[in-house]
Every structure is written in C-alpha cells, then in structure tokens.
C-alpha cells in the first residue's frame, strides 16, 4: 500500500532519487484518487465520449497489454486523454493546511518516543494536494458497440518535479533536498453500460470475473 508520506519523504529527502510509483486498483492511494471529484468528472468525460463515439474507441483506443508505465512525461500513445491543470482544492492555501496536520503529527511522532508506532496524519487533502494537475489516459480492454458495454482501463498520471516549486526550488531551505522527479501512475478498470441511454458503471462481482 502506498502512502503519500512515502512519496513526499522520497521527494524531499537529501538522498532523493527518481522513482516510479505504480498504484493498482487495490492500492490505498488509488482508492483515494477515485473518490476525488476532479477525477470523477474526468472519467465521466471519457465515459461520455465512449458512449458517443464508440466506433472511434474500437478502432483507436484499445488497450495494448504490452504497454507499461515508465518514468516518462511523454504521452501514453493510443489513448483517450484528459488533461486537468491545477484542479480546485490544490491551491497552496488549502494544501498548507493539510501539510500542517501532517507535519504536526510527524513531529509529535518523532519527538515523543511513546508515539513512534502511531502513523502520521495523512488526510485525503494531503493526498490530492500532492498531485495537483493530472492526465488520465483511457483505453478499452473490451468493447461491444452493439450491446453498448465496455471495460475501460484508466491510467492516471502525475509527475512531482522540482519545477513544480518555481523559484523556491533555489531557496536555501531546499539546499539539502534532492527533489528528484517522482513519476506516479494510478490504474483501475471499470465496466460500463450505456444501453439505457445513460452511462452506468457496473459494480464488479465479488469474484472479480469482469464481463
């Protein structure tokens, strides 16, 4: 399970190195981003486009099993894409509050030996603030335009980079910080059905069998 603290610690560490974070559907971080309103709206746009342009998806946006996420900023080929710059709630003011909570709990954990087993407080805001802008690349694992059903495969991407920090990257406070780029990918699959005229997400069966 991935925590945002893991990623932030790596980014700000003096010994920071570039890392690829791939978070599958059952990862804690993926569950959090899927509940985030800008992500819900983004996936809804992809679902609507699929229902309106099914044949284009069938010919152009089919999942390629050989594709794997890498430490790159260049676009994922052959996918529908949704670019969401600076979504609401990721402004510095909002994020500062989430960070204060995290810092406060982290300091307490460090200076009071008895608290060491306690986890630092990582709010959902801290998780989404640490993403900010994102791209979601969507393909179909399976699609039936006649039946109006599909299995959609979402890959959400964000890079946390030194350039995210503007002129403060050169602030002396960061002299000890590595700030190496962290490449983050979240992946999940949804079954959808728009035969009624409205796109509906079909709950997965407990056995996880898909269609």
């Amino acid at each position: 399970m991935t925590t945002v603290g893991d990623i932030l610690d790596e980014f700000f560490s003096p010994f920071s190195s570039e890392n690829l974070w791939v978070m599958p559907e059952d990862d804690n971080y993926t569950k959090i981003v899927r509940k985030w309103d800008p992500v819900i709206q983004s996936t809804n746009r992809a679902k609507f486009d699929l229902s309106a342009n099914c044949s284009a998806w069938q010919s152009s946006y089919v999942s390629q099993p050989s594709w794997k996420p890498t430490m790159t900023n260049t676009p994922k080929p052959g996918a529908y894409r949704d670019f969401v710059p600076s979504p609401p709630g990721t402004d510095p003011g909002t994020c500062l509050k989430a960070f204060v909570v995290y810092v406060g709990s982290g300091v307490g954990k460090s200076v009071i030996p008895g608290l060491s087993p306690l986890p630092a407080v990582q709010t959902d805001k801290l998780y989404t603030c640490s993403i900010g802008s994102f791209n979601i690349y969507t393909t179909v694992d399976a699609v039936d335009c006649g039946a109006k059903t599909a299995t959609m495969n979402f890959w959400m991407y964000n890079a946390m980079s030194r350039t995210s920090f503007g002129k403060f990257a050169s602030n002396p406070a960061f002299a000890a910080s590595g700030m190496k780029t962290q490449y983050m990918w979240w992946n999940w699959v949804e079954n959808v059905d728009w035969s009624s005229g409205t796109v509906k997400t079909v709950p997965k069966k407990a056995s996880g069998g898909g269609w």
Partner: protein
Amino acid sequence: MRKPALKVLSVLLGLAWLAGLSPGLAAGQAVIEGDRSVRDLGSVQVDDASVRLLIAYSGDSALLELAVAKSGGPERYIPMFGSTYRGIPSVTLNVIVSKSKDQLWVQSSWPDSTVLAYYRLGADTATTPFGTMGLLDTPFPKLLSGGPQGFPQFDPSGVWTLASFYHPGDE
C-alpha cells in the same frame, strides 16, 4: 524502515515550500497574470499568417501549444501536450509546411508522438492529440479532453521543414 529525523526534515522542507509557494519565472517567460506566464519558443511566417510555438505555464502545469494568427488578427491556440508539472520535457519541434503553403504540421522528437498538430491555414479547427477541435481563444484552457484519431499524412516530396525549434526542457 522510515527514519523519523529524515521524515521531519522532509515535511519541514515541504512546509517551507507551501508557506511561500508562488511559482517563479525562468528567463524568457512573460508574465500574463498571477502565476501564469508564457515562454516563446519561436515563430515563423507563412505568407500572411504568423505561427508561434509557446509554452503556457500555470500553477503546477504547463501546456505546449501552437499559436496562429492571420494578417495581424488575434492569436488563437492549438494545444499539443499538457504537462502535470510546471515544465515541458526536452523536445525538438519541426514546423513542416506544404509547398502550396496551405497546410502545416508540427513534428516532435518524442517517441510515439511524432506529429503533435496539423493545421490548414485559415481554418477554424485543427487536428491535435486531443482530436479535431476548434481553435482556442486562450492559451490557458481549464481542461482538455479528447483523443488522437490520426493526423493527415504528408508526402515528404510535397513539404519542407520551415523551421526547427529546440526546447532544452525545464529541468
């Protein structure tokens, strides 16, 4: 195993950043408003149309774009790549023009993204990695949604590379 001292240092550094966060400007960027700025990568003239390559920076994102204007009219924008950090990776961009000077392509050096834009000069739409779309009135769209559906191919004997621009990357 986490190291608590390292963790505290990390979060304090993060707090220092957030307390004063205001994205800075690299050389060559013009301030638009607030945290928005534009870097001009270069421009060319195709008869009476001007064509400019630019990066629009906003918040923690950047958008690589083509701007077109005809006969001194207002610029309109064609998005080519949205970045989730305030920068664009290193890239060489070639502006390719048909010999009849009525079509142009922007070709990138990135793998799998060879062509990033196609535009028929004077048209109100362009072909982009987000599909065929109307030209934008602003270089700072709230979001972009769509998918590539193939760019018109060009016959190498019927075009020439009008200009090449190199962006070294923002890191």
